[in-house]
């Protein structure tokens, strides 16, 4: 008989939200970029840059937090006998949902985690992003109610579930073999930003350990920012939502303590104040997350549990970051990318195509 999972209780999810809320501003204090103590989309984008998938010199760094998220979830899953290798729920669709989720998130400049952290740091543009996120998720719930499904996954061999964690272990080993060299844009095969957000980071070991801790607790609690809004819209259920509320409150208090709170729309770190595009970017991202069944953080934790379909979504996001920067769809603090609007339109058309076609028959 297994022990009861205390993290899946109401106080469990609130505790994990509070933990992430306290830790993220501390990571910022230790060197991570402004209002970006943790951002799954930004950090996966930085990883894409570190391995040369894009050449945006200011956002290239192998973020140990992401590696820790997956490995921490893997450890938790093994300890509590929840490692279940599974694949086969339309992975190709999940890959492109990941690609367009990234294109949407980089139009706004952040994943849902960072949207919450930006709000907690006083960046009022995050309000538009969060409204967009809710709007995108709401559209996703309409498809879900109509019978949208990517089909069932099937159990598979452990090796398949290990692939993404192993890739990230290899990435970390590469970081040890080719560590950052002061003022050098490249060390061995890895790119390292020498200015911009990619150059700002907490010490490697601290980033990894915090990533492991968050991965562990998030796997136990099923923390999910998309699920928080989706369950509220779909079932009027507040369980996961209480987790993100705790995150915002504790991150806000930590920012006050650390002197990192500054309210306003302008002059915010790694942000722009184009309200329509902040809303639209997160709408696309939210719709992609809803159609894929989890926010980008949750997809990492599921990957750690052996979910090969979530792992494909993660790879889609990393490749999507390459598209976003190579094709100029990603925003910057100066505003929208030259092809930002085209990227969002393409993403919206893709999501509608998938939403309308992936319906269970007779539903």
């Amino acid at each position, binding site marked *: 008989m297994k022990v009861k*999972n205390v993290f*899946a209780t109401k106080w469990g999810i609130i505790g994990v939200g509070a933990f992430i809320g306290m830790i993220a501003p501390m990571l910022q204090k230790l060197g991570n970029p402004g209002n970006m103590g943790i951002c799954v989309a930004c950090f996966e984008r930085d990883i894409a840059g570190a391995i040369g998938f894009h050449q945006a010199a200011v956002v290239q760094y192998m973020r140990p937090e992401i590696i820790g998220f997956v490995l921490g979830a893997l450890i938790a899953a093994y300890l*509590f006998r*929840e490692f*279940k290798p*599974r694949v*086969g*729920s339309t992975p190709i669709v999940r890959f492109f949902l990941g690609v367009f989720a990234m294109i949407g998130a980089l139009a706004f400049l952040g994943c849902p985690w960072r949207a919450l952290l930006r709000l907690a740091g006083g960046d009022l543009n995050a309000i538009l992003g969060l409204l967009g996120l809710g709007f995108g998720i709401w559209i996703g719930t309409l498809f*879900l*109610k109509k019978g949208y*499904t*990517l*089909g*069932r*996954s*099937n*159990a598979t061999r452990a090796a398949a579930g290990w692939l993404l964690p192993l890739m990230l272990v290899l990435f970390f080993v590469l970081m040890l073999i080719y560590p950052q060299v002061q003022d050098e844009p490249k060390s061995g095969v890895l790119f390292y930003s020498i200015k911009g957000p990619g150059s700002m980071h907490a010490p490697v070991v601290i980033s990894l350990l915090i990533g492991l801790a968050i991965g562990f607790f998030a796997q136990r609690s*099923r923390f*999910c920012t998309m*699920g928080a809004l*989706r*369950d509220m819209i*779909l*079932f009027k*259920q507040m*369980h996961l939502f209480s987790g993100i509320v705790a995150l915002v409150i504790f991150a806000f208090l930590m920012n006050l303590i650390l002197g990192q709170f500054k309210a306003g729309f302008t002059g915010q770190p790694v942000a722009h104040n184009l309200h329509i595009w902040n809303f639209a970017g997160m709408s696309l991202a939210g719709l992609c997350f809803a159609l*894929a*069944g*989890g926010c980008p953080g949750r997809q990492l934790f599921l990957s750690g*549990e052996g979910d090969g*379909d979530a792992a494909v979504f993660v790879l889609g996001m990393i490749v999507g970051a390459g598209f976003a920067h190579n094709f100029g769809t990603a925003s910057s603090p100066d505003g929208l990318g030259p092809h930002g609007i085209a990227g969002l339109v393409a993403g919206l058309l893709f999501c509608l195509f998938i939403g309308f076609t992936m319906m269970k028959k007779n539903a």
Partner: protein
Amino acid sequence: MKITVDARGLSCPQPVILTLDEIKKTKKEEILVLVDTDTSKENVIRAAISQGCKVKEVSSEEGEYCISIQKS
């Protein structure tokens, strides 16, 4: 009288949607929900309780769960 909902292998939130649909629709008194992850198990139990149903029994076999829900 029982009815079975097979939610194995489905992503969030489909196991919960299928369970709630059946709770609303069926005239049978007992619903058996099959799931294959702990997350789905917890979500289905939470949803059933929120609808005022009783969770009679949760049995597990080879990594899968069968949740027995009693309609009130």
